């Protein structure tokens, strides 16, 4: 049977329930309420909101706000993205789209330590691939993953601009020059002992 006009437009049939009205708005509101409830008990959300206020809740400041959110929480989870979306009056899809577009934002929690191996051209021709292979071999995870005990996250960077001292590795935010496979393994083993 061909769908009726009422069916297509979602208009109410005589006496019947509305058809074709998506149920998501209802669901999303519940989700949002839960997210805001989650936010009410956490001081970090207040700090984040103050930061949004500094930007006058401008929608074009979304990337700045996500930077701040990641700085506060370490990663961006769904509730956090919903919170940002509702405060900036943006559709959640837009916030999610931006958060997943940029490599800098992570939707997964990070380990206690981070090891970023720079894979820029200068580091690459000086053997950064060997460093990465050695570290992968040691902690048995791939770039972008965290060890099961939540100790070390292994990441790669496209170029940190430290080409003059290549190959460089960033351990917990500290750029360390002229690394080798051996020195990188040594550094990470030190973390694991602690």
């Amino acid at each position, binding site marked *: 049977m061909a769908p009726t006009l009422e069916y297509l437009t979602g208009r109410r049939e005589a006496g019947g329930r509305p058809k074709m009205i998506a149920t998501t708005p209802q669901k999303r509101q519940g989700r949002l309420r839960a997210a805001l409830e989650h936010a009410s008990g956490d001081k970090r959300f207040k700090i984040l909101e103050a930061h949004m206020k500094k930007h006058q809740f401008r929608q074009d400041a*979304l990337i700045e706000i996500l930077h701040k959110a990641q700085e506060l929480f370490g990663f961006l989870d769904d509730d956090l993205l919903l919170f940002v979306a509702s405060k900036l009056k943006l559709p959640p899809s837009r916030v999610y789209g931006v958060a997943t577009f*940029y490599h800098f934002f992570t939707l997964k929690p990070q380990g206690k330590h981070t090891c970023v191996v720079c894979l820029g051209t*200068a580091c690459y021709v000086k053997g950064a691939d060997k460093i990465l292979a050695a570290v992968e071999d040691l902690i048995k995870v791939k770039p972008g993953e965290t060890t099961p005990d939540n100790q070390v996250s292994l990441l790669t960077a*496209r170029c940190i601009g430290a*080409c003059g001292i290549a190959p460089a590795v960033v351990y917990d935010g500290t750029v360390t*020059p002229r690394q080798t496979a051996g020195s990188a393994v040594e550094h990470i083993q030190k973390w694991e002992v602690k």
Partner: protein
Amino acid sequence: MILHDLLQIKERELAGRKKITLRCCQAAGCLSSGAKGVKEQLEKAVAQAGLQDQVEVRGVGCMKLCCQGPLVQADPQNSLYVNVTEETAPSLVAALQGGRTDVEQADPNAAFFKQQMFIVLANSGLIDPERIESYLAADGYQALHEALNEMSPKEVVETMVQSGLRGRGGAGFPTGLKWGTVAKSPAPKKYVICNADEGDPGAFMDRSVLESDPHSVLEGMAIAAYAVGADQGFIYVRAEYPLAISRLQIAIKQAKQMGLLGSGIFESPFNFNVDLRIGAGAFVCGEETALMASVEGKRGTPRPRPPFPAESGLWGCPTLINNVETFANVPPIFRRGAAWFAGIGTEKSKGTKVFALAGKIKNTGLIEVPMGTPLSAIVRDMGGGAPDGAQIKAVQTGGPSGGCIPAQHLDTPVDYESLGKLGSIMGSGGMIVMDDRTNMVEIARFFMEFCMDESCGKCAPCRAGTVQMYHLLDKIIQRRATAADLAKLEELCDMVRSTSLCGLGQTAPNPTLSTLRFFRNEYEALLQPDPGGPPGPANFNPPPVPAAA
């Protein structure tokens, strides 16, 4: 703030200078080798020796020879100490008093320093980037004063046209022409954007300029804003450069306090504000339309041009986008005149260019040379050639959009046209040297993997083409490919280059094409004989038919 105040600050700063200065590099390269501790130790040693009124320890920007950091320069002795450590730092202070120091020194007359010519990096390594007074003492903001008080916006644009400056972001579009187009676009609101999203792997010139001399970029932006009639500027800087971000924040704050940014600059009706926008790690945001989308807080995907940003850019308003180095060239042009600038370089490429020298080369670091300098002078004389007795095989310019220039073409002068003829581009200034142990096919795969990861996914040729090209290159390296695969790769390169939406896709095949052009034998050595399949275009000679039994 009027000119008189400006000069007064300059005089006060110069009068306060001490007899001896120890300049200690505080840029990202040296800091990661421990330059912060070195500076603290120097200060402590000066205090202990009771020399505070004679010796100034100044934290400065990049001193160019990054491979041997931390660097400390003593003036007026003119000795450049290299590889200084916290332990050896106090001995430098002892050396000032006639003592001995075991710290190694670099030869200030070496080709690495002597063949450089500083315009953009003139203040780098001399001034303290975190103090605006230090920039004012180097005649800072006087160019802005001259432009605002003695020139009309039209004359400012005219000066830029005469200087012959071309965009330093890579494409080399004439800057004066761009300024003129934005200036002519009638609109109540216009923007100036500084593209500091230095995404090319292997390039760190813009980071060094921002870390070493942030005010020169701000001044250049302000002059540009006056010329085109904008009152709001944005600097889009990568999140990977935390030090550059913090120094820019300090610089903007200080310039605002002094009334050199903000409302009524130099008591004229000209207003100009600058805001920072922090990138989030997307290479495609170096493309101007993607960058503007990102400034607006959206996904950084490019859009078709025209309309060009000069007509319809940020929020639909006419927008001027220039690179960091382009803006840093502006104040010197106004201080010393367009004719002076136009006298440097080649006929079509004026001025100097900053290159980040890295890879398999002895002296890595920053160099600034006049346009037209031969590549061999840069990599052999200044760079000192490949280390460990290896031979230079190729020089890669332009990052993932550029190409590899083989050793036999090293006498090529560095300018936009000559590099283009060899299938490479000037690019933003990254120069990676490869020695004879580097596998060129792997380099091509490395860049293709980069483009594949960084493709934003908006247009199909780039999104799907880079993946297919990567797999073909991978197949070649794994020795599973035949001549038909190589032919397919070349066909794809041509298709992606011709049909992609933005520069990322249009230039993604360049590293592959240029290595194919000069190092085809390396590809062919990896190919497998075609097992009876239909011969590809590169494999036209069918195997001889065995004689009938």
